[in-house]
């Protein structure tokens, strides 16, 4: 991609672009980190997804729109490659995760200095995330069991209620709470280890 100069007048820089460009460049890094986490989970044979931790991390270190855009982009890439078109709607989960992480970060709960608040925030993110997950599972997967780790819970609830919605909600709760809790803890730990010179937020006026 190259650029051609305007025919009229010199370029006028209206505002410093330093942090803006850093944040734009960070978006693909967040998307790629979400993706590569899958490799690590595979290596370590862990029973979780953890493909939203980088969204949380991006939100903490660079702001809500960077985290949301990075997370959404991750889902777009997956939808256009491995998961198929309908899976792009999972991107809204990442947007939701970015917003709720930002809320907890603003009130000072996403910090390793307050472990109790961090754990509470992680559990709340997991519990509230069940709602958008269930809506998407209804529209894209027909409320079918898609994760072997919680399939037995799905089967048990379905057997006792005859209701795929209840089975899907209960198995989502079981999967989402530990997943989002550990993801938020990881995001907070990695953010706490970032040297100050890597700051990605513009200095306050």
């Amino acid at each position, binding site marked *: 991609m*190259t650029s051609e100069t305007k025919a009229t007048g010199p370029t006028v820089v209206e505002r410093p672009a330093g942090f803006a460009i850093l944040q734009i460049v*960070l978006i693909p890094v967040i998307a790629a980190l979400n993706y590569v986490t899958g490799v690590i989970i*595979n290596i370590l044979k862990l029973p979780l997804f953890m493909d939203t931790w980088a969204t949380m991390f991006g939100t903490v270190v660079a702001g809500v729109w960077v985290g949301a855009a990075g997370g959404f982009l991750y889902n777009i890439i997956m939808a256009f490659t491995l998961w*198929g078109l309908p899976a792009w709607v999972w991107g809204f989960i990442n947007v939701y995760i970015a917003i709720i992480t930002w809320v907890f970060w603003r009130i000072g709960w996403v910090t390793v200095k307050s472990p109790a608040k961090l754990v509470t925030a992680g559990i709340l993110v997991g519990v509230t995330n069940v709602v958008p997950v269930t809506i998407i599972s209804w529209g894209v997967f027909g*409320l079918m069991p*898609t994760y072997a780790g919680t*399939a037995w819970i799905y089967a048990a609830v379905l057997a006792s209620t005859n209701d795929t919605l209840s089975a899907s909600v209960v198995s989502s709760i079981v999967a989402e709470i530990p997943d989002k809790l550990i993801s938020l803890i990881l995001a907070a730990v990695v953010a706490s280890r*970032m040297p100050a010179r890597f700051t990605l937020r513009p200095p306050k006026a």
Partner: protein
Amino acid sequence: MSSTAFGILKSGYVARNTLVHHLDGRTKFLFFLWISLFNYIFYDLYVTIASFAVVTLLAYVARIQRFVATVLLIIVLPILLLGVGIIGGPFGFAHNKTPIAAMQLFGLTIGLYLEGTVYVSVWTSRLAVTITAAILAYVTTHPSDLAAIMLKSRVPYKFAYAFLATIQLIPILTNEISTIYQAQVSRGLNVQTKLIDRFKSIVVLMIPLTLGAINQTQIRAIALESRGFSAPVKKVMLRDPKLKASDYSVMLIMILMTGVFIYLILTRGLVPFMVGIEYVRPGG
């Protein structure tokens, strides 16, 4: 997700000299959107199987059938087996009425039911069709064409950059995590240990990976700025993909088939060919 699936994104564009490769990227992505949409509208196993046969044939023509088969085995097959075992089986799916195969065990009826099995087969076939169409569009379109198509479609160039940069970054970071993993193993990291210790291992792998990526972010930002990335000027493209006669032919076929599908919906409903199977809504 297995390492085989990652291999597909790592490899990205698969260079071949086939009819599918010669099609414009816009045509392929339009086909992807079109076939996905109609597969989710119809609730008919015959329609989805026919669609799957079409996309599989195209994958074969594009000589990417191995890629497609690998991804389907990793992603769709487990969902199909889980779904048939639970929803098609004796676990209480409310619509199950007609047993396909059943046996008595300790006074309980255990077997597969037609309604649940069809329900799962329709949903997983839909997934298989959209995934195959997506792979077909993605791995047969050159990344430079992809960028040009995005800009031509008036996608903001910053988003186009982010999309393409992610595709480039994934193999880079995957290689880096491999290096970091080997370094940590040489320092005593044990991945064959208790679950809690494996969770702790994520931190020692993620911190160097993330800090390295952030460091590169700053270098990348400087490089982009030196090329006038945020300069308020019109961007031009190195490649200029154009629609050809073959693209218009494919689009014409899609328009004709859209007419056929609309006719089927109006005359025979959303279950046009399956006899004796009712439309089952998720959770309904």
